[in-house]
């Protein structure tokens, strides 16, 4: 099953043979497909009008959706950020200059015109730069998606402004988990203790750095 998937991915847009083209299903990339479907699927509408000319064709789900904002041809000057949590939207379509996210591969800066990226986030500091204002949040974990139209979606499970962190609790947690790490026996215990140490040391460096 996986060999077929690999084969299809490789032959996706490179095949020109008619025999091969018939065998592989050529599907366009999502960024190439026009997202403006407000007029509906024209083939469906025409077929409907032939059969029932007096009744308006029903709307399909895609017509109820807002089309994806198009990719501008020149570099946009601002990054549009949607920073969301499971229970609230911190920033919704906020125009900012730069966002620095704590990706697992290190602090990643996202500027307008950034290459489309999917980044897994580790516990750390997220900073939103708008002119001279910098808003910092501590994120527990999540994902950051950067799209080609300079939209960034940052999803986090917990995001807290730095002034809401209790330093005493952080120190206590750090020492408690370091101790657990030393005395852990099973793999799962070690993993949980290691997570505790990572999160609390990240909190610590966020408070001091």
């Amino acid at each position, binding site marked *: 099953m*996986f060999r077929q998937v690999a084969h299809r991915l490789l032959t996706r847009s490179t095949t020109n043979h008619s025999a091969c083209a018939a065998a592989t299903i050529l599907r366009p990339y999502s960024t190439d497909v026009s997202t403006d479907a407000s007029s509906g699927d024209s083939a469906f509408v025409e077929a409907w009008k032939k059969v029932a000319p007096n009744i308006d064709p029903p709307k399909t789900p895609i017509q109820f959706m807002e089309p994806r904002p198009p990719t501008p041809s020149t570099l946009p000057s601002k990054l549009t950020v949607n920073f969301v949590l499971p229970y609230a939207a911190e920033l919704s379509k906020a125009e900012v200059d730069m966002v620095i996210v704590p990706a697992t591969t290190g602090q990643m800066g996202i500027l307008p015109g950034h290459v489309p990226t999917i980044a897994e986030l580790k516990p750390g500091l997220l900073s939103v730069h708008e002119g001279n204002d910098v808003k910092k949040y501590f994120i*527990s974990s999540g994902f950051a998606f950067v799209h080609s139209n300079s939209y960034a979606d940052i999803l986090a499970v*917990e995001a*807290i402004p730095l002034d*809401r962190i209790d330093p005493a609790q952080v120190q206590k*947690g750090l020492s408690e988990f370091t101790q657990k790490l030393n005395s852990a026996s099973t793999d799962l215990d070690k*993993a*949980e203790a*290691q*997570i505790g140490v990572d999160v609390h040391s990240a909190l610590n460096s966020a408070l001091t750095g």
Partner: protein
Amino acid sequence: MASTAAVPFWRSAGMTYITYSNICANLVRNCLKEPYKSEAISREKVHFSVTKWADGKPQKPTIRSDSPED
């Protein structure tokens, strides 16, 4: 297309990403200052009942809850 990416330590210990993410979120919530901490904890309370099935028949349901039983 062999997957040779380094596996994170929690994955090799048998933990899924969701478990990892929830543990991180709980630890961060515990480090909040007072009024925010109780808001966060009350927001995350869950209350649900789980029914296992065997031979097409439901067994006795168990109730899992963070709120005190009345």
